[in-house]
């Protein structure tokens, strides 16, 4: 959990009146995004976010440690999502294989021929740019559900391996395996995008 999230959790639990508004504002967005990317329906995601907040506040007296607030909230959200049972519109469940996610070696097996896009050209503010937000959003949606859940909790929400494991009721080893494959799949998608972008740009330059 990031320092900002921890500050929000501490203020909420200390009973600071501004802590309530701050928490609601931050988590209704986080919960909506998580549920939307997990279940794929806007309506369901709005409901999950609201139901989760209701449950959180109804049981808030049971929570003492600000460190465990975020994983506790997401555990409730995960269960609310499961209760929606509507079939996700995103990628169907399947295993991601490591072999498909590594860069390919040349036909002779020489690693020098591995093709990796030129990532040095990635703009510093890429995370704020809408074209990158769109491509990352698409890449996340294309992941099978079990991998998507892990990348949302570990990288997007920055929960620890142990926290993500407790939210999802799986082992830490499984969190690590799925996270790595999900990251490789995302990297591959971005790599493809960067390559086509730079090729387009260099063509524009050469055709002046």
């Amino acid at each position, binding site marked *: 959990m990031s320092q900002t999230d921890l500050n929000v959790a501490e203020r909420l639990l200390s009973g600071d009146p501004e802590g309530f508004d701050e928490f609601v504002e931050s988590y209704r967005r986080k919960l909506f995004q998580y549920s939307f990317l997990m279940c794929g329906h806007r309506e369901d995601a709005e409901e999950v976010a609201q139901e989760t907040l209701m449950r959180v506040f109804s049981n808030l007296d049971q929570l003492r440690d600000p460190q465990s607030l975020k994983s506790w909230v997401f555990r409730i959200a995960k269960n609310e999502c499961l209760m929606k049972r509507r079939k996700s519109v995103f990628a169907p469940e399947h295993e991601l294989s490591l072999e498909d996610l590594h860069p390919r070696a040349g036909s002779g097996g020489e690693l020098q021929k591995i093709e990796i*896009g030129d990532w040095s050209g990635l703009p510093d503010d890429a*995370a704020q740019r809408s074209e990158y937000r769109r491509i990352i959003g698409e890449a996340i949606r294309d992941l099978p559900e079990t991998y998507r859940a892990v*990348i949302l909790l570990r990288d997007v929400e920055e929960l620890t391996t142990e926290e993500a494991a407790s939210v999802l009721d799986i082992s830490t080893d499984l969190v690590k395996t799925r996270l790595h494959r999900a*990251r490789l799949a995302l990297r591959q998608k*971005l790599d493809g995008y960067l390559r086509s972008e730079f090729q387009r740009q260099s063509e524009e330059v050469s055709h002046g």
Partner: protein
Amino acid sequence: MANDDCAGVFARLSEYLDRELPDLSCEEIERHISDCAPCVQFLESLRKSIDLTRGFSAEEQPSPMPDDVRERLRGLFETARARKR
């Protein structure tokens, strides 16, 4: 440089970046990487891709929260606080 070495390194790069590997495995990876340009390139691209995902905020945002919902939540919050004391 054998292809197998790179594959072995690739498989552990997330744990390496997350500092979840024992020292010995880190040293092994660093030794391999110091001598393997494609692995360095791959590691950098993975690192940048993870950075882009951190705190990712999708273009779809929730609708504003209705006032009555916010008030209900505030009521539950006050009740829970009172119970805790």
